[in-house]
C-alpha cells in the first residue's frame, strides 16, 4: 500500500476514503490503509499548502 497523492483530485479522493473508513468498523487492513492515507495527505499538504 503506497498512496502517492500528486493532484488536488487525488487529494480529495484520499480524503473521502479516509472519512469512509472512519465511519465503519475497521478491519486490520482498513486501519493500515487509514494510517497510510493520513500520512500521504499530510505529505501532500506539506508540499502544496501554506496552511497546515
Amino acid at each position, binding site marked *: *500500500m*503506497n*498512496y*502517492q497523492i*500528486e493532484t*488536488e*483530485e*487525488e*487529494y*480529495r*479522493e484520499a*480524503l*473521502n476514503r*479516509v*472519512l*469512509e473508513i*472512519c*465511519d*465503519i*468498523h*475497521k*478491519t*486490520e*487492513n*482498513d*486501519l493500515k490503509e*487509514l*494510517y497510510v492515507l*493520513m*500520512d500521504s*495527505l*499530510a*505529505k501532500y*499538504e*506539506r508540499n502544496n*499548502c501554506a*496552511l*497546515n
Partner: protein
Amino acid sequence: MPDNNQKKLFLLDMYALIYRSYFAFIRTPRFNSKGLNTSAMLGVTNTIIQLLEKEDPNFVGAVFDVSAPTFRHEMFPEYKANREAMPEDLRKSIPYIRKIIEGFNIPIIEKSGFEADDVIGTLAKKAEKEGFATYMMTPDKDYAQLVSDNIFMFKPGKGGGDAEIWGLPEAQEKFGIATADQVIDILGLMGDSADNIPGCPGVGPKSAQKLISDFGSIDGIYQNTDKLKGKQKEKLIEFEEQVRLSKKLATIILDVPIEFNTKNLTRDEVDKESLISLFEELEFRTIIQRLKLKDVPVEMSMQGTLFDMGTVAAPPEESKLDTIETVQHQYYLVENEMQRASLRAELSVQKEFCFDTETTGLNTHLAEIVCISFSFRKHEAYCVTLPADKSEAQKIIDEFREVFADENVTKIGQNIKFDILMLSNYGIEVKGKLYDTMLAHYLIQPDLKHNLDLLCKIYLNYEKVPTENLIGKKGKNQKTMRSVPIEKLSDYSCEDADLTLQLKLAIDSELDKSNVRRLFDEIEMPLVQVLAAMENAGIKINSDELKKFAIVLREQIIQLEKEIIELAGQEFNVASPKQLGVILFEKLEIDSKAKKTKSKQYSTAEDVLTRLVDKHPIIQKVLDFRGLKKLLSTYVEALPLLINQKTGKIHTSYNQAVAATGRLSSTNPNLQNIPIRTENGRELRKAFIPSDDEHIFLSADYSQIELRIMAAMSGDEEMLRAFNEGKDIHSITASKIYKVHVKEVTSEMRSKAKTANFGIIYGISAFGLSQRLNISRSEAKELIDGYFENFPKIKVFMDSQIELARKNGFVQTIKGRKRYLKDINSANAMVRGMAERNAINAPIQGSAADIIKIAMINIFRQLKEQQLKSEMVLQVHDELNFDVFKPELEAVQNIVKTEMEGAVDVGVHLTVEMNAAANWLDAH
C-alpha cells in the same frame, strides 16, 4: 601491491560504511531490549574490529561528511537532491557510532564544505608522497578514480568475509579502462543515479566504457564528434554541457585545505571504560567479552582478540552467544513409568513449572504430541516422550492430568495457547495461573518480535538449537518431530522448556518496570484460555452457500473480463500485469508518465490504478476484476478447504502478540480482514452459520467506540454528557459549532460535524477539512476553533498526548498498554507528524482493544459459570459473535450486553448493538 614494510594508512568513508551496515540488517534489524535499532552500530563495530585485528594499521582515520552544502551543490543545486531522508533509526545511530570510534581512539576527520571522498582523496595523495600505502575503506566504486601503486580501495567483505582490494589492475578490469582518471570520464557519461548526477541520457555503463575506450576521454569524444553515429551522436551533442558538468561533479578533488600529519592519524589505546558503558547500553555483551573489556569466564576468552593480536576475523555477534554446547545443563529423558512417577511427584510440589510440547505439526487441530518437556529449575529439564500409537500416548498423558489441572501451580510457557490447545486434543485441561513469556515481552516491547530464539539472544545471551537442525528448512521436504532421534529430540525439547523458564525469570521484573503487570495478569493472560476455547469451538461454514457464491463471483469476473477486453479493443490476459500494462499505457496511453518496475514492465499495482481511476473507464473495471478474484481465491474458494474434517468447522488461530495496537489478529483463515465495505464482501458473511438447527448466530458490536473513548480519555464534559444522555453525537457537535438548537441542525450541518469528529481523531488538517466540506480554509479553521471552544478538553487531550509521547517516548491506553513512538522527537517534520497522529490515535485504538478483551474474559466466565451450551466463536475488533443454543438466547443476550457495556467504567456509556439471525450477515 605494497611491500610489507611500507607504512599503512586506512581512511574510513564513514557514512558509506554506516549505511552499508544498517542496510545489511534491514530484513532482520537488531534491537536492544529498549527497542533501539542497533544494526548500524553492530555492523560498524564488527568492521572496526575486523580491520584492527586483521590489518593492524599503523595509522587510521574515520572520515565523516559534514551536513552542509558543498561546492558541488553550488555547481548543481540538484546534486544528491533525490536522496531519501536518512531513516530515523539510522539518524539516531550516528552519535553512538561517533562515540564507538572515539572509544576505539580512532581519529575522526571532517572538513566543512567538502565531502568525505574529497578529504580521503586529498589525504591519500599527500600520504603517497610521504611513502604510505593508503587503503580507502569504502564500498563506493567512485573511489576507483584515485587508485595507484600506493593507493587502494578496500571494500569490506560481506557478512564478515574477506575484504576486496582494488589497485590499478582491478580498476582497469572492472571499468575497462587504461588509467584510473578515466573512471571520472565514465561516470561523467553514464551519470550516477545515487548522487543525482545526470550524465548523458541513453548512455549506460557499457556504452560509456566503449566511448572512453575509443576516444580516451570526454574531451576526446567531443574532438571527434564526426566519428559518432545516430542517436548517440545527437544526445552527446545535445547534452554536452550536462556531460561536462557531470564529470566535474564526479571528480573527487585533491586539494582540500587539510594538513597531512601522522600525529592526527595515529590510533591510541582503547578507552575501555567508555566502550564498556556504550556496549552495555547497546547490549553487545559478546563484543565486551570478545574484546576482553571486562574479566570474562575462561571458556569465553579462548579466541584471539584485538589486544593479544589474534588473527581470527570478527565473527557476527551471534557466534559468541552461549549454546547448549557451552553451558552446563542436566536434561533428562523420561521414558518409563517409574521415571514419570518421580517427575510427577517433583512437579506436584512446585509453585510453578514450565512446559513445552513438541508436535508433528503446527495445526493444533491435526497435529499430535511427540513429547512434553518440563522445567522448574534453571539448566534442568525433563522430556516425556509419547509413542505414535494414540491410545498409548493417551495413557501416558493421562498420568499428567492432575499435574496440569492443579489450580495452585502456575504454568509457564512460550506461546502457551498452542500447548494448551495441543493438550486439549487429549482431553487435558490446563488450569491455574498462566505465564506466557511471549505475551510478557509483547507488553514490554510491543514493536519487536517475540519468538523464543530472539528473546534468548536478548535476555539470556544464548542461541538455542535451531528447529531447522532437527527437521530441516520449512517446506514440503521438512521432516516431522516424530522422525528425529529421541536423544536429539529430548535435548531440543528440554532446552526449550529450560530457556522459557530462564526467560521468565529474566523478563518478569520488566513487567513491573514497564508498569504493565496488571495488564498482563488481568487481561492478556486470562484471555489465553478464552481464545483457546474459541479456537476449539470453531465456526460453521455453509459450503453450499459458498459454492453458489463462487458461481456468482466467477460469472461477474467473466463479465468484467469481457468488458475490459472490449474497452481495450483487443484480446489479452487481463490477469497478466505485464499484458495489462502494455494495454493501459501503450495502447490506451492512459498515463504518459507511467512508471516501470524493476523487471522493466509497467506497474499496475493497486495504488497506481487507483490514481488513474478517472482517466479511463477500464481502470475501475480492472480494480473490480482484481477485487473479485481476490475475494474468490482468499475466502470463497479457500474457506471450504480449511474445514476440519472431524468437526466440520473452521478453526481460526488468534494471534495475541502481533498488532502493536493491542488488537487481535487471526490466521488460517484471517477472519479479521473480510472486506465489509463492498456488497460482495458482506455477502461472504452469509456463509458463516450456527452449528446446527438448535443454534442461532448472535452478533454484538460496540457503537461509536472510538469517539466514546476519546470523550472518556479527555474527560470532556460536553461530549460525555451527549453520550451519556444517549444523544446523537454528530447533531450535538453541529449544534455546538454552528450555535443553533439541536432541533435546527440540518443534515448538512450534521454531516460537517461528523467529518470534524472523525477528522479530529485521525488528525485531518484545516486544509483537509476545507477540501472535504468545500469551504474556505478560514471557514475550516473557524470550524475547528469552534469545535475546540465547545469541547475544550479534547484539545487539551490531544496536546497532552503529544507532550507525553515527547517526554516519555510512549503513549498509553486506559489499561496501561504502551505504544512506543520512536519518531516523536524526529527532526524530520513529516516523520514527526506521523508519530504525533499516532500519539492521539494509538491510545484510542488500543483502549478499544483493552475493553473488548475484558468483555471477552467476563463473558467467557459467565457462560462457564452459568453452564450454558452457547459459545463465543469469533472476535472481529469491535464485534463479538456467538453460536447460541436457542433456548439460551435471552440469557446470552443479557450476559453479552451487560459484560460488553460494563467491561470498563471509563465514565462514558458504552453502547452495544446486537442481533440474532440464521447467519452472520443477517445478524450483523
